[in-house]
């Protein structure tokens, strides 16, 4: 129920930000649309810890800036690799374990790996990720497990498979 209210609130805010118009008629339309969407979502049973993960939202606030910083660093690294003459690439397929306890955690970890240039998740099975790495540096960096620890910390999994184990992704 809390999730449904939260979803409705988020959708209303989204409507307001996208339209920017505060006329009563349009506001009424907004409320009506949001109600319909929330009711349909509830009926489809998609408002769950994966569809609308609200629990650990504040923790993801600390995760995102770190991920952006990593993405920027990797971009610079891969830019240098691509412009190298010859290209210093050493492609490898490696397997890493995700220490997250929920599927959502594994998916967030896999997506974070893919977002970081130089590593792409090409498979995910029962918490084991198959990753294609472009250079030895990116592969070693991944195997050191810094990102894994950060995602696990964001999920709050080091304590327990907590209250639905939400992440930061709507």
């Amino acid at each position, binding site marked *: 129920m809390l999730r449904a209210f939260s979803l409705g609130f988020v959708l209303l805010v989204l409507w307001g*930000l996208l339209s920017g118009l505060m006329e009563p008629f349009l506001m009424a339309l907004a409320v009506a649309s949001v109600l319909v969407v929330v009711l349909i979502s509830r009926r489809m049973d998609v408002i769950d810890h994966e569809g609308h993960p609200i629990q650990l939202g504040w923790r993801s606030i600390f995760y995102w800036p770190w991920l*952006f910083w990593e993405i920027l660093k990797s971009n610079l690294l891969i*830019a240098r690799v691509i412009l190298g003459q010859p290209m210093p690439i050493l492609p490898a397929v490696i397997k890493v374990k995700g220490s997250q306890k929920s599927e959502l955690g594994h998916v967030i970890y*896999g997506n974070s790996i893919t977002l*970081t240039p130089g590593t*792409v*998740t090409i*498979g995910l099975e029962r918490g084991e990720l*198959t990753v294609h790495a472009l250079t030895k540096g990116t592969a070693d960096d991944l195997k050191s497990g810094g990102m894994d620890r950060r995602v696990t910390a964001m999920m709050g999994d080091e304590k327990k498979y907590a209250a639905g184990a939400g992440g930061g992704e709507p």
Partner: protein
Amino acid sequence: MDLDLAGNLVIWDMIGWALMSAGALFAAIGVIGIIRLPDVFTRMHGAGMVDTGGAGLILLGLMVQAGPTLVTVKLILIAAFIFFTSPAATHAVARAALNGGVTPLVEKGTDHKKTKAREKGGDGKSSTT
């Protein structure tokens, strides 16, 4: 504290342009990577540069240019959607390549698991439609 015609600080305009130029540079290098890199899996890394570094920095530059307005909010939403969807698209390309029987090009001297990758690449022949 120079102001432009619209009354905005020129310095923000310059920062915006610098960020957009950096983004364009990353996107261009990413495209060069797509051309130069040898196979589909390595090329995905080049594509990844375009939609993280390239798109991200261009959007950031546009946000700086737009200033604290609703336009910036919309740009943030666009960035969020790109960052949520592009890994899914990349993953779909990778799965399609693996199911189609493409084996990742792997150079010797690494601790890769070549045979396993081969098996993975070969087990989806039924889906080559």
